[in-house]
Structures are given as structure tokens and as C-alpha cells.
């Protein structure tokens, strides 16, 4: 339905897919840690850092496209999702640092499950006009 618009979308491509996959892998890893009663480990914090870098790159790609004259379908919602998105990994980081128990891992799991949803919503709010 949105294939024509998606082709030119700055937030729909290998980078966006990579952040979604990384986030889901991180969620599974954190879930395993939570089930095994382990606090967030280095892998989880490193994963959050890499995820944040990926999301920032995605934001930069979107801003570059905006600079080039392209416009999202729903600008208000798009920027809302974009700002929310880059805040999610830091939020997970801070809360997980405050909670060095299995529940810290559970927090990372929860936020890493929400992140892919926000990425997809970001893509939808960019592409809506071309649909």
C-alpha cells in the first residue's frame, strides 16, 4: 500500500530494520537474564548503547531528508515519535542502573519491545501521504 512512498522514505531501510532486529534480540537476551534472576549485564548496556547510536543515525537520516526538501506525511506525529524514539534507550539505561536486580533486566526487555513498535509507527507517519 505504501510501497511507492516507502521507497523514498529515509526511515525505512537497512538501518531501520537493523535497529528493529537489534532491539528484539536485546529484548530476548534481557528476558533470559530476568528469568535466570540476573541483573542487567554488560551485554545489555552495550546493546542499549549500540541501539541508541542506530536510532540517532536514523534521526540524522530523517533530518537530512527534511533538509533536502522531503516532508513526512504526518509531521507532528512523526517528530513526536522521533523524539520519543531516541529517548527510549537512555530511559532504559537509567532505570536499569537504578535497579541492579532481575527487574532491571525486565525493564530493558520491556523498553526493547516498545522500541520496534515506535520505529514502525515512525515509518507509517512518514509514508502516510503516499499510501
Amino acid at each position, binding site marked *: 500500500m505504501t510501497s511507492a512512498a516507502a521507497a523514498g522514505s529515509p526511515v525505512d531501510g537497512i538501518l531501520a530494520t537493523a535497529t528493529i532486529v537489534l532491539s528484539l534480540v536485546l529484548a530476548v537476551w534481557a528476558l533470559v537474564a530476568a528469568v535466570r534472576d540476573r541483573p542487567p549485564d554488560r551485554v545489555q548496556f552495550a546493546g542499549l548503547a549500540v541501539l541508541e547510536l542506530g536510532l540517532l543515525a536514523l534521526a540524522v537520516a530523517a533530518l537530512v531528508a527534511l533538509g533536502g526538501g522531503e516532508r513526512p506525511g504526518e509531521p*507532528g*506525529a512523526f517528530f*513526536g515519535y522521533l523524539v*520519543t524514539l531516541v*529517548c527510549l534507550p537512555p*530511559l*532504559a539505561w537509567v*532505570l536499569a542502573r*537504578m*535497579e541492579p*536486580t532481575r*527487574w*532491571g533486566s*525486565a*525493564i530493558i526487555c*520491556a*523498553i526493547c519491545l*516498545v522500541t520496534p513498535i515506535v520505529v514502525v509507527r515512525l515509518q507509517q507517519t512518514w509514508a502516510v501521504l503516499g499510501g
Partner: protein
Amino acid sequence: MVETQVSRRATNSGPGRLLIAVYLLFAIAATSRAGLQIATRFDEAPVAYLLSALAALIYIVAAVGLARAGHAGRRVALACCSVELVGVVGVGVLSLVDADLFPDETVWSQFGSGYGYVPLVLPVLGLFWLWRTRPTAP
């Protein structure tokens, strides 16, 4: 702070912190949604958008109540979770019975199906958590 006594009963650590995280996510989601709806197309469905704003406010206050722990915090969280449960069930039923009442989606429409029914589960978990951490008689 009396560590051993208080920490086990606090609403803001362990599973409580996960609950606060989810409340924060919903506070962000509901606030941005309501803000955008009210700013861009308030005339279309004022009731639904004001309801979104109310839901957003309740999520924020509930998160703060749980995070503050203490007696006042517990009471605030208890009130918020109760209102939330009534709200999500009430709006859910109303949106099924009379769809025209809420022409646009709110966080609580169809029992929160747009958010994976988490809005329905969240107040129940909140109330359960408050009950689990209830202070024992002195």
C-alpha cells in the same frame, strides 16, 4: 531510611520499578497523542481528546505516586489505578455500545486494544502491587 523494613515494602523498587517504567512509557505515549490531537484537530472529537489528556495525566500522576513510595504516594497511586481501571473498562464498554461517542481513538477505546490491552492490565497490576507491598499493622 530504615533499610530492611522499608525496602521490602517500598513500591518503587524491584517489580515496582518495572511497573513505573511501563507507566512512564504510557505517560509519554498518551501525553504526546493527546497533545497532538488537541493542538491539531480538537474540534473533530473534543470528548475523546480531553479523555486522552485525562488518561495521560493519570499515568503521569500514578508513576509519580509509585515512585515517591511513602503513604501519600501509595494513596495517590491507589486513586490513579482505581480511576484508570474504571476508565478503561467504562470507556471500553461505551466504545463498543456506542461507537459515535468516541469518533476517534483514545488510549482506552476498545479496552486499550490499540496498545495491546496493556492499559487494561496495567491498573490491575498496579493495584496488585500496592496490595502486595501494603504496610503491615504497626
